[in-house]
């Protein structure tokens, strides 16, 4: 089953085309990588899925029936799509545990305002939320930091906390925007292992924007190469990395340019 079908998605910002009518599908349960140079529209695509941007044309069909572009942005996590950001978006002045608990928001049952005022419902929900958040912290292996202030933690841990917040919504599809940016080799291997176990334990489909080619090749099932809003190539990692056109984009066009100059 296709979990995501992108059809002819087009978005431009005052004449600057960010996505030029791209179409592709993502299978359920796969790890799908989006790669490309800076400004090729990878993060823009994520923002379109999350409804932070409004595309001018096209459709994004989720689970073969829901058109995401018709949904309000806060409904997206309820449908089962969670994401992380390239530049961290965390609640810096609250504790780690509460950051995770905010991610639980779409799963909390009590909807009516006045119900929050009854101690019984309040205690039950608070207890449930706390246990659930601890379970996620245990999964990520950062339980011992639960009482710490987020801004007092190192960058790598903050990345994990953001991942934890996304996982708290129990997503069917996880959008990870450069999960290994700013991390050292060991940490990025750790992240790769984590992404694999997320897929195995939770059955989550993962969409991944990444610059680290080692990471991408080791975990992705399929890759999509974007260049200034157009899809260059979709396929298995080893096929894609051998493609001459892709190599041209990633290694630059010196050969052509030099040939032209002489």
């Amino acid at each position, binding site marked *: 089953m296709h979990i995501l079908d992108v059809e002819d998605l087009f978005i431009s910002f005052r004449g600057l085309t960010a996505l030029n009518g791209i179409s592709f599908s993502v299978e359920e349960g796969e790890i799908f990588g989006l790669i490309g140079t800076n400004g090729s529209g990878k993060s823009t695509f994520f923002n379109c899925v*999350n409804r*932070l941007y409004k595309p001018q044309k096209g459709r994004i069909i989720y689970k073969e029936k829901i058109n995401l572009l018709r949904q*309000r*942005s*806060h*409904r*997206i*996590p*309820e449908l089962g799509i*969670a*994401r992380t*950001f390239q530049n961290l*978006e*965390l*609640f*810096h*002045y*609250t*504790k780690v545990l*509460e950051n995770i*608990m*905010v*991610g*639980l*928001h*779409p799963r*909390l049952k*009590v909807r009516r*305002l006045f119900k*929050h*005022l009854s*101690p019984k419902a*309040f205690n039950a*929900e*608070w207890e449930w*939320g706390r246990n659930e958040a601890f379970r996620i912290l245990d999964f990520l292996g950062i*339980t*011992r930091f*639960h*009482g710490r*202030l987020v801004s*007092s933690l190192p960058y790598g841990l903050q990345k994990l906390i953001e991942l934890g*917040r996304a996982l708290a*919504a129990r997503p069917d599809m996880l959008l990870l925007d450069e999960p290994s940016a700013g991390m050292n080799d060991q940490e990025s291997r750790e992240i790769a292992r984590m992404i694999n176990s997320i897929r195995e334990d939770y059955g989550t489909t993962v969409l991944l924007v990444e610059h680290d080619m080692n990471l991408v090749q080791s975990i992705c099932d399929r890759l999509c190469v974007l260049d200034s809003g157009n899809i260059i190539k979709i396929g298995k990692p080893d096929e894609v990395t051998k493609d001459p056109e892709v190599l041209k984009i990633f290694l630059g066009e010196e050969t052509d340019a030099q040939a032209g100059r002489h």
Partner: protein
Amino acid sequence: MRTFTIKLGKRRIRFSDRMIKEDDEKRWWIAPMILGVYLLPIVLDEYSIYLLHLIAVAIIGAVALDILCGFCGQLSLGHAAFMGIGAYSYGILHMTLHLGSILSLLLAGVMGAFLSLLVGIPSLRLKGLYLAIMTMGFVFITDESIRYFSTWTHGVEGFRVSRVIDLGFTKLSSGKVGFFYFIYTLVILVVVLARFLLDSKVGRAFTSIRDSDTAAEVSGINLLLYKVLAFAISSFLASFAGGLMAIIIGTISPEDFNIWLSINYLIMLVIGGMGAVYGAVIGASFIVFLPEWITALRDAFFPPGTEIAVLQYLIYGLIILVFIVFEPHGIYGRWLVIKTYWKKFPFNEKRIGRMAWILRWR
């Protein structure tokens, strides 16, 4: 979980930070505190009881503003407008239309909550200082409207409101002990309910909007709903407090609800500790008591005849400066530091002030 074990003779004691957190949530001192407040009228004279009435109104108003500014992060200078709307709504509903006291008070609150939509909905686009300026405009509009519709509001000459409240089974007049019990029951109700609300998912949604609204949005929080909700709850309580204020002071006029009142409430929050319900309570009590202390100070240290107003603004300014520079988390923040210090006594961390504030009760 961070655990550590210490040996005391033959006994081994295990500590963990989960334990310390659990320990924080003991609420044994709430009941004695309520009892203490209820026993106050036995020892106090009439003037002090009147002062405690004003403190009660200030506490409800400050908690209301704290929900909006401290928790949801929407800086508002429009608080006076909502208190004015509440006071005049109560006056018109009760005195002119002869509705029951409690019903008029509640309807005054609903009126404030409804009118807060006017500033709540634009808050989705306006942030920080711009929102503050817009809400300040709302104060001017309310002020002028009160003057303009003088057939209903009696304009600048002042609206006389009955100082007696009819509960159905009994009548309480403000300034008396009975009214004291009535109004402090309301205060305790407001504080307890605010604590519950702010510790639930609604409170978490508010704080997450304050810290980063993009992250809140992708976590499934409806920004418009929760911002409007924060404005509505805050304005409901503020208007309710305004209605109570009308009963207590008896005569209300537009000057009672100008921009200085809004600023006064912001000062209460800063001095008490913004973003904590108890901070608002402490700040409100402190600021209402301050003129009394200043009078005592003048009598003790300054030559007779020194103008109280001059001294008051001088000391106000000094206190704000000192708090902003040395104690940004307010009196409640400092109390938390002291408490945490003694609680963790042999295992203190560095920068305990910051940690205490993070681990605070809402």
